[in-house]
């Protein structure tokens, strides 16, 4: 079996005539934090969406823990995303009608866990992310920084092996952005989760162990640190 938890190889993807990925490849080790950087429109978010099984590439291979994602059934891939992966995006990931506590409990409820148990676990994660004060508020009533921490709690509540974070601090000021990154990285290290971190901010990428640069849909592996 490969030493890597997740491997994308020779990924191609086009939107109409526009090539979004043109032979991109990347690997993610267990517990490793990999930053994906590149200019706007370079294909870095598309690469993240492919690696996470959200969209299927036109061609190429994506192997997660020995399983090929591109040939997996939609149902199996959805289940994998729900149980093994966590997601943090820049905006709009929390359900506005639910409280923050219900939002964090949601992935567990979708996986069949009883409400009381799911909310008990969710509460622990809100405390860990230092936002238990907004548990009963709706996302619209929380600040941007609090909302992102709730989103991180929701990404971590299922005990994922990989967290996919797409510009997780993009809408936050420097101080809130830093707090969210520290909590995300610290909790991922504690739980052994890997992070695929798409960002255009070098200060955010500096939390990673390694960087992959995407330009014109192609990847350049930069370095293995230490």
């Amino acid at each position, binding site marked *: 079996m490969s030493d890597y938890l997740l491997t994308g190889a020779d990924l191609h993807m086009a939107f109409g005539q526009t090539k979004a990925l043109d032979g991109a490849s990347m690997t993610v080790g267990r517990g490793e934090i990999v930053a994906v950087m590149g200019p706007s429109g370079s294909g870095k978010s598309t690469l993240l969406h492919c690696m996470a099984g959200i969209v299927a590439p036109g061609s190429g291979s994506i192997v997660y823990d020995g399983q090929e994602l591109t040939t997996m059934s939609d149902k199996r891939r959805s289940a994998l995303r729900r149980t093994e992966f966590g997601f943090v995006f820049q905006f709009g990931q929390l359900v506005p009608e639910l409280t923050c506590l219900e939002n964090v409990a949601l992935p567990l409820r979708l996986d069949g866990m009883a409400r009381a148990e799911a909310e008990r676990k969710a509460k622990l994660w809100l405390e860990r992310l230092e936002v238990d004060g907004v548990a009963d508020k709706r996302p619209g009533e929380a600040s941007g920084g609090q909302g992102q921490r709730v989103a991180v709690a929701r990404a971590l509540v299922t005990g994922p092996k990989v967290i996919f974070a797409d510009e997780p601090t993009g809408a936050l000021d420097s101080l809130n952005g830093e707090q969210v990154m520290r909590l995300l990285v610290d909790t991922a290290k504690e739980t052994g989760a890997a992070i695929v971190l798409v960002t255009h*901010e*070098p*200060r955010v990428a*500096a*939390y990673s162990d390694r*960087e992959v*640069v995407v330009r014109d849909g192609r990847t350049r592996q930069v*370095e293995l*640190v230490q």
Partner: protein
Amino acid sequence: MSIGHALLGLLETGPRHGYDLKRAYDEHFGADRPLAYGQVYSTLSRLLRNGLVEESGVEPGGGPERKRYAITDAGVTDVAEWLVTPEKPEIYLQSALYIKVILALMSGRSAGEVLDAQRTAHLRAMRELTVRKQQGDLADQLICDHALFHLEADLRWLELTTARLADLGKQVAS
């Protein structure tokens, strides 16, 4: 900043007199700080002594300004090594990096590689500061933040320059 390397890089495009070299240097890199003649000739003497340039002819009239200098094979190797060695990531990026990019374009080398090597060195420095910041007290955090923001500005410049390399290459060639 290495004036010797900059002069060597300019000599890669062909042999020149000391005066021509000064003019080329000032045109490309010396907008704020033109080179003094004395500096040009003392640098050329050192390069000559180290075997990195050689005299390739003397025009009638004598005097150092009449000598033409050409880069040697050792000089070409020296420039090539200098170009791909990243500058020490300091808070303010030295003009040396700009000179490297222009000389790489002039000599047909990969300016993208020069920028990528620098980018890697910068991000490594930022990682070290981030680790130090996470382990330090508030004073440490503020000191590291200051350095991190400046290094980030450099990185943004590196990215923008990478995006503009094709245009810059055309301008240098014209």
